[in-house]
């Protein structure tokens, strides 16, 4: 399948400036900055409760930041609802899989194209020409996507009946069906066994090559991050404590302290 939106402007895919999020007295994210260029594959790591998922929730528009700006392909997402942010080109997966379990696999992919259906209620009722054309396109595109993900044989199956690893894969496929510029993967390897993790590494690398998409992922499996990411950012207590290539990050004293604690008791 081909990406219909081509990357025309030179603005970074994601630019986050001075992002701060407070929940009552707790500062979950503090003055967070990041710039992701087109085609990058970056990582975000940190100990439990460091604020990684909060950053993703902010970028995908699920929370409104207390302070700071998020620019997706040059447009500020301030005040936008999540579906509008998705329309700008951000798609994500969830830490715990959130597929629509009582809808067929094919429908899961189809409904994820909701934002760019291009027809509304009255077209659906009248079964207008535009409706029929778009439904055909949506169906074809969904089948093509399932085909390249090798999921087509499950098209009429319900996601809840699929193995866990396949559900992960399907969730990523669903995210891609909205034609994103930026794909956020929130712990895609969580709950996978080591064979599945190897498959996942291959899958992410393959997606990155095949689809014209920037990927930003949160992951606890360090081997996944070391293999895949060019750039890693480490946060702890909402603060960025280190960033750089996997090697730099691995040997960074602040990172070791954050993960293992320090010597002074």
């Amino acid at each position, binding site marked *: 399948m081909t990406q219909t939106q081509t990357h025309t402007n030179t603005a970074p895919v994601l630019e986050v400036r001075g992002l701060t999020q407070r929940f009552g007295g707790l500062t979950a994210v503090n003055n967070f900055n990041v710039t992701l260029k087109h085609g990058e594959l970056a990582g975000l790591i940190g100990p439990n409760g460091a604020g990684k998922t909060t950053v993703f929730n902010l970028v*995908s528009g*699920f929370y409104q930041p207390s302070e700071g700006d998020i620019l997706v392909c040059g447009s500020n997402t301030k005040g936008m*609802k*999540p*579906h509008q942010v*998705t*329309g700008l080109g951000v*798609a*994500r997966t*969830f830490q715990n899989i*959130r*597929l*629509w*379990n*009582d*809808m067929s696999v094919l*429908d899961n992919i*189809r*409904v*994820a*194209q*909701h*934002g*760019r*259906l291009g*027809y*509304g*209620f009255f*077209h*659906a*009722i009248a*079964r207008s020409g535009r*409706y029929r054309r778009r*439904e055909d396109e*949506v169906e074809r595109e969904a089948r093509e996507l399932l085909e390249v993900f090798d999921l087509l044989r499950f098209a009429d199956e319900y996601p809840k009946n699929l193995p866990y690893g396949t559900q992960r894969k399907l969730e990523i496929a*669903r*995210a891609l069906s*909205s034609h994103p510029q930026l794909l956020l993967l929130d712990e895609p390897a969580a709950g996978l066994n080591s064979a599945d993790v190897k498959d996942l590494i291959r899958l992410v690398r393959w997606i990155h090559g095949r689809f014209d998409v920037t990927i930003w992922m949160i992951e606890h499996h360090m081997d996944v991050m070391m293999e895949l990411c060019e750039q890693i950012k480490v946060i702890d207590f909402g603060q960025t404590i280190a960033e750089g290539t996997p090697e730099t990050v691995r040997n960074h004293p602040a990172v070791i302290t954050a993960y293992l604690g320090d010597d002074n008791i």
Partner: protein
Amino acid sequence: MLRYTFHILLILAGGLITWMAYEEMIGLYTLSVLMFMGVNIIMSTSLNLVNGYMGEFSCGHAGFMCVGAYVSSILGVLLFAKDKVFGAPLLDPSLAIYAFPFIVLAGGVAAALAGLLVAIPSYKTRGDYLAIITIAANYIIISVIENLGVIGGSRGFMGMKRVINAMEDVAYLPWMPIWVFLFTVFSVWLLRRYLSSTFGKGVSAICQDEVAAEIMSVNTNKIKTISFMVSSGVAGIAGGLFAYVIGYVNPGSFNILKSTEALVMVYLGGMGSLSGSILSAVLFTLLLEALRPLQIIKWVVIPLLLIILMQFRPEGIMGNKELGDMFPWLKRFYKFK
């Protein structure tokens, strides 16, 4: 040819009922049971959109019926019948035949607008809290009408028979059975087309995981608004027909008990199944009539059946399946989804 079997059967059924009513082969009683069946089908399928497909719990469905019933009754009487309050008809009564579907639809549109009363709070509230709001909406609508003296207040409003008489003066046909049949088909058709489109499947996405729906580019507020408005609008159509079938409306007949009847039909048929709702509306109407000899004890037996149903088959007759999923051979004749 096979594809049209269902359509042909439908036309035959409609024609048969009309013909038998015209020849007076079926009595007025049977005819009225058939008409209530139609009204109940519209009521249960439209409520299924919100309670079954969208996973919200609306218990104020009768309120929207009430809006539809009053708006179409008043409009009909105002335009085509002589009335104590409104005086002479504004238009020539012989036009009533052509205007009637629009009068009923106007009631539906008014009810859809009343649906905003529930749709807007649903942006931020869901589940039990929204259920409370729907009950409140039901009460607000009834109370407003009870206090409007012009249209009879709690004494009710009548005169719709004169509109039907005006239609019969032009052409002597069993008009009400015809209209009820056509609007029942129209309502189910409308709901089915909405729900089977990718656009309408956003409704199920909201039901199954609202967060995922919003993140996956479904404009949840828009879909909720449309769904609540369609559901209450179609209920308004049911209300309008109900008013004309009986020839009299009063706010008391659209109270929470009527809403409960709609709920019973939805849960009896199975949530998220249009064919289930149709089936249960038919069964429920027949059951009400069959248990009529029990008189007041009827309302002990029917809730008891509900308890038994919830114990032994909580998903209802059809679960969330359509008839085509239960009997795959039916799919040759009709595409269910």
